[in-house]
């Protein structure tokens, strides 16, 4: 279905609809306890992002922020498959990926609020969430750069023979910038243990990826340019993501080099706090909201015999955790003025002279 320019002033492109069936991966060989932990993660991410949104509306979060609402299955699926010492590299849209590595909610929320108990003491903010001790090696807000940085962590793992893998998440729009190309060729040439995951949510900021990309599948259709397999997964089905993640992580650990995974998904809201997302055709938005990663996953668990009551318990436990995190974040002190001048250098300071 092609929308003429007149319908929405935002270029001309086919709308992409999600799969109809939600049970395609019901039969996947994943044990129930794992699936329940994935469900819990999905809930944590969803409820956390909704709370983050509420706090913007209450003017408690300053600046901007980019939510993963509707895209949680990718972070949850990979998080469930990664080894604790693997490396995550994410973008400004990194809340879910941070939680996926087991970072507690309180410091993440406190960072959004610019508090001293924030994950980076308020100095980084929403777009730069980092927790090295959880393998969360950073959230990067300039498009493209972090793909090359992920290569470096993978190179180091290869050099140290540690068996670690670097997983780098980025968006569809990122596939058109130079650093993407440099990073993919470099990783392939040196057989680095890195997994590149394109979260294709069909839009960059306000422009449809289809309007400014030479090929229909922004990542998968570029794979062969780097001697890689084109891999496309259902980014709204955590089981599909999880199984793919297991196999590409294993491939990297076996020393067989990088992979490029395109996970097709959709964001429920706008690009960032400021954006109502009006440029997206209603039919597209509704279809994807119906094919919601949590709906999909909860439906699956019920078909597999899990009682609603048991899932409600998880939801409630997560809700309580979000409440607690909110209170702790709001109760956080403002950063000490002195902290504005610390940690430019490894000596802890910021002096440029003697």
């Amino acid at each position, binding site marked *: 279905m092609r929308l003429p320019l007149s319908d929405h002033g935002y270029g001309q492109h086919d709308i992409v609809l999600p799969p109809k069936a939600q049970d395609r991966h019901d039969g996947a060989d994943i044990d129930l306890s794992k699936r329940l932990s994935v469900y819990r993660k999905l809930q944590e991410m969803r409820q956390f992002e909704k709370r983050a949104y509420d706090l913007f509306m209450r003017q408690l979060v300053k600046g901007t922020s980019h939510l993963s609402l509707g895209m949680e299955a990718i972070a949850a699926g990979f998080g469930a498959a990664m080894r604790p010492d693997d490396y995550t590299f994410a973008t400004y849209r990194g809340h879910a990926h941070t939680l996926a590595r087991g970072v507690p909610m309180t410091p993440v929320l406190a960072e959004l609020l610019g508090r001293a108990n924030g994950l980076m003491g308020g100095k980084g903010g*929403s777009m730069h969430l980092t927790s090295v001790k959880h393998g969360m090696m950073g959230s990067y807000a300039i498009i493209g750069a972090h793909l090359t940085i992920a290569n470096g962590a993978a190179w180091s793992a290869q050099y140290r023979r540690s068996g670690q893998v670097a997983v780098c998440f980025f968006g569809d729009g990122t596939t058109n910038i130079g650093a993407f190309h440099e990073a993919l060729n470099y990783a392939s040439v040196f057989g680095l243990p890195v997994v590149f995951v394109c979260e294709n949510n069909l839009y960059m900021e306000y422009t449809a990826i289809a309007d400014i990309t030479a090929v229909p599948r922004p990542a998968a259709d570029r794979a062969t340019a780097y001697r890689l397999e084109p891999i496309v997964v259902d980014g709204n089905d955590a089981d599909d993501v999880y199984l793919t993640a297991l196999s590409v992580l294993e491939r990297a650990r076996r020393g067989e080099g990088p992979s490029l995974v395109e996970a097709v998904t959709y964001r429920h809201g706008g690009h960032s706090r400021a954006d109502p997302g009006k440029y997206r055709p209603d039919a597209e938005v509704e279809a994807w909201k119906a094919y919601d990663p949590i709906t999909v996953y909860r439906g699956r668990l019920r078909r597999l015999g899990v009682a609603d009551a048991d899932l409600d318990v998880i939801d409630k436990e997560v809700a309580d955790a979000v409440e607690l995190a909110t209170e702790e974040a709001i109760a956080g002190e*403002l950063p000490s003025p002195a*902290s*504005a001048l610390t940690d*430019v250098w490894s000596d802890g300071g910021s002096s440029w002279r003697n």
Partner: protein
Amino acid sequence: MAQLTYRDAVARGIAQEMRRDDRVVLIGEDVAGAGGVFKTTVGLLDEFGPRRVIDTPIAEQAILGAAMGAAMTGLRPVAEIMFSDFFAVCWDLVVNEIAKTRYMTNGQVTLPLVVKTGNGGALRFGAQHSQSIENWAMAIPGVKVVTPSTPADVVGLMAAAIRDDDPVLFFEHKGLYAAKSEVPDGEIVDSLGTAKVRRTGRDATILALGLMVPRAIEAAEHLAARGIDAEVIDVRSLVPLDTATILGSLHKTGRLFTVEENPRLLGWGAEIASIAVDECFWDLDGPIQRITTPHVPLPAADSLEDLVLPSAELVATTVEKALQS
């Protein structure tokens, strides 16, 4: 005479020029359908159509390369780099290609192009989306560097930049987009390379740029209350630099202060201080002081960002202390 926001003034300036010259075209990320992520190009797609107002991929090198190649072959492109921080991903096009080609070709190539960008802090966007980088550009021979501080200047300087036959980097301050003030009706064309005295005074010369201009003016009012009559100059253009106005004021007041949003080292005020101490040494009644952001990346937290950016109060106390000692 109507009230206009700084944000809307950008679109007005571009539209004014696109109407009179169909060689003027606009490209950038989300500039067409969305009217720009900062809404500085609203209405241009509707008025001028998709041939002249074009949404691009996320590919800043491709954007500036397209602008340069088009400029050398008969168009007068305006390209947007959404946040000035992103100049770092296409700096090669600016410093090695756009800035040097006319000289290297001994004048064979002319590059009438404008690169507009959202610059500066105070919006809590953190270290990678808040930088003031006019000083990066000032260091490069071959590009003109403009930073308006009022809606009227935005319209007039944008028009002057588009009509200029040399490459102009046009720094819009993100912290001023919402600012509103009177803008004359009809065509406005300002001139590049000119500073503006925003407040006349006898005791000290305060130079400022972009968001620091209103803060310097506010500081001057505090100072007046404390019996110090400061002159505030809106530098507006770093290249060409209006040394006549700046040094003329210093000759009158004998004291020079700069208010710079950039981090300390090699901020734009350093060059002006070095010119002043060379050419006006005997005019100086005391040290030249630069008030800048400390030499650190910008923190994201509002409380910390407010702490590091120069405030009107910091300017006032610094000048007062200096003149008392």
